[in-house]
């Protein structure tokens, strides 16, 4: 061992003066770190841009314009025979109620805004929502004794009127609009100053059901939120345990051979299958073969489960793989069974990665529309609130993203605003879900 002595000691360099090579390396280091910061900042900047766009466009949906007027429930029109027979009252359709409302509004205009250009009751049609008739009919059927009386109602204003109060509709913009005229806006201004027309917080947007194309002012996201909720329950309850169980089997128990390779490739391949193809599968398997009901959140949840499974399995396997083998050895050496070593030690250590996969998988499932298209959850599904958990899973319903997607397509710009409002709610839903997972994840995170 003489070669060491041939080594001439390196020239002494001061620690305080940084050598050129180290300078270069440090510059590299600084650049590398800067890239990191830039990357995080880029992500956050885009987040801010997207979120502010969403908020800017969507907050309007949380307010709505209402008209509060007394309406005379004319017996001659609602109960011709005057015997308060509920079946007969039901025969009067919503079309029969519309004139009553128009009369009431016209009366209010004549009283509060005398001299307006609105000269007939029919002309007030542009001011009120078509939903009003149904609203009043429901009340009357529930309380037939109201007939013949004058009752004060708070009814929705038409979407154009609402848009006028929100600044979306202007006097210029209605120039060629056949649905509303400047005279209507004049009246709205007056009635507003009199407190009859008011813009208020719109709870119905958060709790309500979808409305038809011609009544954006009535549409709410509540029912489809429940649809999403029931769907996500199915997804969570199925995909997390199944995904984790499948990963555990594949990563810890399955023999390593061509067969497991096939499964592995196959699972990553499933992640690349377009979501609409899962819809095709769902339609064939769950509806046509298994005979589950159409448009049901249960089916939606099953389809989304199949779609999210690969995401969860891939991230779970990756994090199971990263648990050091010595931990497994330690447990096995103590006489723990393989199963015990996995469930007691490996799984908790892999939990952060599993939860990340779950967050991302569920986020994807929560925002997915395409597969729902084929199993009948996209469209006009203004169902009522599910009457219980079973009907929540089985009755036709939509889901938030499908609802938003539909709204974004509709012609009336009022729906565009609602679409963004819906996105806000979807994000709140998502963030709530994430926070729970993140809190869990932080409890499991530990570097060793």
């Amino acid at each position, binding site marked *: 061992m003489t070669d060491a002595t041939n080594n001439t000691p390196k020239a002494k360099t001061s620690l305080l003066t940084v050598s050129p090579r180290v300078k270069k390396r440090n510059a590299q280091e600084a650049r590398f770190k800067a890239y990191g910061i830039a990357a995080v900042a880029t992500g956050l900047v885009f987040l801010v841009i997207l979120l502010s766009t969403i908020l800017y466009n969507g907050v309007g949906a949380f307010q709505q314009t209402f008209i509060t007027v007394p309406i005379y429930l004319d017996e001659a029109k609602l109960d011709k025979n005057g015997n308060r027979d509920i079946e007969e009252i039901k025969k009067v359709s919503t079309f029969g109620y519309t004139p009553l409302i128009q009369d009431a509004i016209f009366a209010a205009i004549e009283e509060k805004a005398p001299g307006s250009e609105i000269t007939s009751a029919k002309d007030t049609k542009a001011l009120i929502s078509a939903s009003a008739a149904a609203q009043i009919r429901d009340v009357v059927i529930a309380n037939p004794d109201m007939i013949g009386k004058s009752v004060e109602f708070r009814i929705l204003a038409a979407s154009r009127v609402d848009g006028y109060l929100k600044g979306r509709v202007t006097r210029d913009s209605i120039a060629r609009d056949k*649905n509303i005229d400047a005279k209507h806006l004049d009246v709205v201004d007056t009635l507003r100053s009199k407190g009859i027309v008011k813009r208020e917080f719109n709870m119905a947007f958060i709790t309500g059901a979808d409305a038809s*194309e011609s009544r954006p002012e009535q549409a709410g996201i509540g029912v489809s939120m429940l649809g999403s909720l029931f769907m996500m329950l199915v997804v969570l309850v199925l995909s997390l345990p199944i995904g984790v169980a499948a990963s555990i089997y594949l990563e810890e128990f399955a023999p390593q051979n061509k067969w497991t390779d096939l499964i592995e490739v196959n699972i990553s391949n499933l992640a690349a299958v377009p979501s609409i193809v899962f819809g095709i599968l769902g339609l064939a398997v769950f509806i046509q073969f298994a005979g589950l009901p159409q448009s049901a959140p249960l089916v939606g949840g099953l389809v989304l489960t199949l779609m999210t499974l690969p995401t969860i399995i891939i991230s779970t396997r990756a994090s199971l793989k990263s648990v050091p083998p010595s931990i497994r050895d330690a447990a096995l050496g103590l006489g723990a069974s393989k199963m015990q070593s996995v469930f007691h030690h490996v799984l908790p250590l892999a939990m952060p990665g599993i939860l990340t996969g779950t967050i991302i998988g569920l986020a994807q499932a929560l925002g997915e529309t395409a597969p729902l298209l084929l199993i*009948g959850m996209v469209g006009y599904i*203004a169902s009522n609130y599910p009457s219980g958990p079973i009907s929540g899973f089985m009755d036709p319903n939509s889901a938030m993203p499908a609802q938003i997607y539909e709204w974004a397509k509709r012609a009336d*710009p009022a729906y*565009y605003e609602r679409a963004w409002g819906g996105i806000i709610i979807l994000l709140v839903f998502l963030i709530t879900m994430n926070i729970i997972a993140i809190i869990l994840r932080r409890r499991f995170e530990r570097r060793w």
Partner: protein
Amino acid sequence: AAARDNVQVAGSSTVLPYASIVAEAFGENFDFPTPVVESGGSSAGLKRFCEGVGENTIDVANASRKIKDKEIAACAEAGVTDIIEVRIGYDGIVFASQINGPAFNAFEPADWYNALAAEKPVDGAMVANTAATWADANAELPAVEIAAFIPGTKHGTREVFEEKVLLQGCEDTGALAAILEINGGDEKAAEKTCMAVRTDGKSVDIDGDYTETLARIDSNTNGVGVFGLAFYENNTDKLKVATMSGVAPSTETIAAGDYPVSRPLFFYVKKAHIGVIPGLKEYAEFFVSDEIAGTDGPLSAYGLVSDPELAATQAVVANEEAM
């Protein structure tokens, strides 16, 4: 399995707005549950319609075109034999540009043919379309770059656009005759050539919805797009509509047959489900009733061109006359 008690409708997204208005009113006025109206396109709707009879298939298919013979055959193969065809009215197709954009006020089919054709006959040979501005197509149109947003090949509207505008324009300009001369009288090929749209970016296919077309026109001053009448009527503040062949589009001019570009809308009812699915017949009858589909009804108010022969349609539904 619990029996299904709601009417299940699927199909065309063009018909969806009207169907949703009807379904909503139906739910409000009848004791039956509100029908479920899915969107997903005429093809997908009819496909599910023809999947067979039974509760796990839909009852009604909306379509923005007539059902095809091949589809009827496929239906029959799956046991769906008695189909009631209901025409609910017409969809007007309008040509509109940005409200603040150049003055596109009047179009002729020939303008569109000249602007968008892929190849045009010039001196006995087909040459690629070189029109760069609308003025190149028609000197009276503004001299701005061509930026046309037309329905993508998935939309039935595209077929109508090709036949009623491009092909018509081809004929009007005499190009059809010239092409026939060049290709030796192959009519089919000639028509196909007439309807081929240039692919150099002057014409943009929209596979999305009218909202997408609107967004594109919003951000492109020179843009001209194809819309449904109802959509236009809800967005008159952003869009300016042009006349076609000198006629302004409106429910009246279309119903009268003056405005040239429109198409019928349909829904199809599975006769076998009538009497089994509660409310199915009532829904169909309600849909075509005067209250709803008449000229004063909410559908017309929303932009559907009421069918002048509505009474005949009502009779078809009432008598459950299969095709």
